[in-house]
């Protein structure tokens, strides 16, 4: 026991005395810091833009009220202009994993016009920045931590062999396996400890609670590190030269972290029979104007069919009324509702396909699990749009009776209505816990352990056999 403890102490001392260790740790901490600040800045920018937008809409509504409306105004005209503000609050965890936050639609508020001409507004962003991707903690954890790990373990055994120290160690009675495993273990504990410490600091910095999510993040990080440590160990167990190990490690990293996820993504884009977003937009526009061209009574008849439960509203003849105007928009919305449903469904099917495929690939598994926990999945984005559509429906249910009755309101009533149009706050659904999601990585770890063990025992047996044959030959020769 003392011998093993001494070995571990010695390995730790060597590890911490190597300048390369500190260079790598220093660069890694710097990258972690950049990712942390960038994550925080991006989420702050997003939230600040949302609240600025909300303020802007309130001001604009107020300005309309002051300058455009007389004392007695039809509610329909009022809602032709004013917008109901919407504020999307990303989960605070999104600072750790920005996911698709930059791909969200730019919808600061909605009017009572057709919702499907409002819900797909992308806004204007720099496409090149979007293409480059985020530099957040999830990226550091999933892509850069493995590199750090592989750099620490690629020469676990070969270092001593190449320095000519192996025979010396043999002379001291230190077994190859115990020497290598002690080195491996020290590195696992060091990298695991470093990442866990940094995670704790980051959670403290973001003010995130140390709850089940923290537990998941920490355990998943350690498990992921263990996975890559085992990959490194499996590679070194072939007893190739250290540089060859480095190449093989890099190839493994490229395959697992870049090529396979990219290929899986390519495969997920199979053709879908669901209508595309553009088809929906063109059809919505066409149906809206077709409803405009029809006699107003026909539009009302179609409107009743939309199931908005407005059958009791006053039906006007062929003169313009605000009720007819909004009915026309409702008819257009209704015409594409099923297409929108299919469109969302098809997007989610692709997402589910990726989720299933991720079972076989640890980096992808961790990414999808973190996306769910941070509320930055495609499903969250679809939910965001669905929530807006639901909110639009609620507004319709609330205001349509008054609009269809062609009610006239005075300014005081309109002002009070404006204050009632408080901001709709939308937050993403996040899952908690879900450690079971990491089961595939555990399976990978077990498989790698078994694989490494088999290679070791195979090599040791063949070496023993080799020695036996050699000694037999020697005896025969003598």
């Amino acid at each position, binding site marked *: 026991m003392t011998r093993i403890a001494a070995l571990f102490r010695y390995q730790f001392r060597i590890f911490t005395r190597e300048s390369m260790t500190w260079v790598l740790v220093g660069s890694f901490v710097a990258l972690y810091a*950049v990712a942390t600040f960038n994550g925080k800045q991006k989420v702050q920018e997003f939230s600040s833009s949302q609240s600025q937008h909300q303020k802007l809409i309130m001001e604009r509504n107020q300005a309309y009220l002051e300058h455009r409306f007389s004392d007695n105004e039809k509610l329909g005209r009022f809602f032709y202009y004013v917008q109901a503000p919407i504020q999307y609050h990303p989960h605070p965890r999104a600072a750790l994993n920005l996911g698709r936050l930059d791909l969200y639609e730019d919808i600061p508020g909605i009017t009572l016009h057709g919702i499907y001409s409002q819900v797909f507004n992308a806004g204007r962003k*720099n*496409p090149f920045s979007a293409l480059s991707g985020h530099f957040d903690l999830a990226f550091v954890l999933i892509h850069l931590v493995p590199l750090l790990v592989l750099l620490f373990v690629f020469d676990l055994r070969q270092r001593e062999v190449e320095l000519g120290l192996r025979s010396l160690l043999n002379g001291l009675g230190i077994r190859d396996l115990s020497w290598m495993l002690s080195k491996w273990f020290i590195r696992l504990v060091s990298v695991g400890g470093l990442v866990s410490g940094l995670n704790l600091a980051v959670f403290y910095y973001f003010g995130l609670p140390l709850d089940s999510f923290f537990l998941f993040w920490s355990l998943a990080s350690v498990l992921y590190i263990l996975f890559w440590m085992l990959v490194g160990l499996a590679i070194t167990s072939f007893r190739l030269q250290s540089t060859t190990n480095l190449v093989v490690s890099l190839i493994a990293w*490229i395959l697992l972290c870049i090529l396979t996820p990219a290929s899986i993504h390519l495969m997920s884009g199979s053709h879908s029979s669901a209508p595309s977003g553009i088809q929906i937009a063109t059809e919505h526009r066409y149906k809206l104007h077709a409803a405009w061209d029809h006699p107003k009574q026909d539009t009302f008849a179609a409107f009743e069919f939309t199931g908005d439960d407005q059958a009791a509203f006053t039906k006007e003849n062929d003169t313009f009324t605000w009720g007819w105007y909004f009915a026309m928009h409702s008819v257009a919305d209704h015409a594409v509702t099923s297409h929108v449903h299919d469109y969302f469904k098809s997007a989610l099917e692709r997402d589910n396909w990726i989720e299933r495929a991720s079972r076989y690939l640890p980096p992808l598994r961790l990414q999808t699990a973190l996306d769910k926990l941070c509320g930055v999945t495609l499903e969250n984005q679809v939910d965001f749009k669905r929530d807006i559509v639901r909110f639009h429906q609620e507004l319709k249910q609330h205001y349509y009776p008054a609009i269809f009755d062609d009610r006239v309101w005075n300014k005081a009533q309109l002002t009070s209505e404006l204050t009632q149009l408080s901001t709709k706050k939308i937050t993403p659904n996040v899952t908690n816990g879900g450690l079971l999601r990491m089961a595939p990585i555990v399976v990978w770890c077990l498989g790698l352990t078994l694989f490494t063990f088999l290679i070791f025992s195979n090599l040791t047996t063949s070496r023993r056999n080799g020695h036996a044959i050699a000694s037999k030959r020697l005896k025969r020769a003598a």
Partner: protein
Amino acid sequence: MLKRIQAWLRPPVTIARKDWTWAKCNNLVLSTVIVVSLLSGFSLIAHFDFQKENNRQAKELQHLVEQQWDQQPARHPHRVAHFGHFAIRQLSPLSFIDNGVNPFVGNATFLEAHQLNSTNFSAAVDSPNTLRFGELTIGSIIQLFLPLFIFSLLFGQYRQERDGQLLRMHHVSGVSSFQFQVGKLVGNLLIVLTIIFPTWLVCLALMLRIEVIPTIWPRFWLLTLLYLVYLFVWSGFAVLVFTRLKNPRKAFATLLALWTLFFIIVPRLLPVAAETVYPAPTAAEFNRKLHRAVSASINAHNISDQRFIAEKERLLKRHGVERVEDLPFNFRGFGMSIGEESSTEIFRRQIAQLEARHIQQNRFIETFGIVNPLIAVRFLSQLLAGAGYHHAFDFDKQAEQHRYQFVQKLNELHMHEIAYENDRDQKLTSQFWQEFKDFQYDLPSLPWVSKRALYSSLALFVWVILTFVGLATFKVRVQ
């Protein structure tokens, strides 16, 4: 003279031939050929298929919206201006080689009066998050992974040559460092080109199946040249590192570290730096500014707007009449026209400012092409493939021009074909709508591309010169 050149060329040719023979017998090279061919073949076919399907749908939809436009019933011209039109983006024919920013750019814009809508429905919006792992295209394989392969090849050769004292033999037999390095460079470049040659032939075959657009073939050949130059630069750089550092292992480890830094970390860090140095306004700030500017312009829908009233007075004076009814054209149509002109000018100015900021950010990143050839090549490759951010902005510009033209033409009709009296109840027959031009996006010309490619081309040119200078000046460290 010719004999002298032949004599000078003999050693490099021998060295290149030796490397070629070495590669032919090397399992690593063979397995890389298989892996690269499979990967690039898969990505080529998948992207080509996606591009074909995407463009077929886009074409059909564009045709549909043109039909919807032509088949409109009798309507008031201003109604038609709000019925609007769609500009639908097709992927450029070379997107299957380098898809660039295509997934992050919208594919359709709704064009209507008084509004400049954003281009919506990007592929990224309904793609899973795996898109962020990067796209697998033949362009990305060449840009990211072939340099790494070059490093591994050279490492294998140098280790053998140093161990086997071959370097010393070359030195003793009078082969100069320059000849030796040129030989190595040519030999390795040939190996790498052999690896991608089959894939490039498939590209060529697929190109023949694409609808011919005038600039496509020159773009394709320029892209081929670009990748050749890129591989030349990395081969030269790697040869220099290996010949300068005595220990091949150290040289290889240095190159691997540089690869990780330049190919993985820096490309993600640079946009963060660019956004910090040149912050773009948030969506809210942009909208606030836009709203303010638009509020200060002429609002033709608001008859009590002071600027509109002033315009009216000026017009009445110019025509020597007292009432708008006495004007030789419909005053409402005129109002729409000047309102459109005023709001368009504001919209275009604001959007140009935002675009200029995005271009500044991207230029900042492009500046690093002088340090990292990958950055320069990435910009150039996207530009030549018609999948760069410049093309995305150009699509928006062409769509906006189309919007302005048709809206102003409708306002003309409103002015001259609709009487002022009882304006709203009048309609024009569908014949009028058929006289409008269809929307057609024209891929920009090569001079347009070259103007935008200047900086990155310069950076790459500097790299080529540096490679030559390095090969000519640095001596091989034999010991």
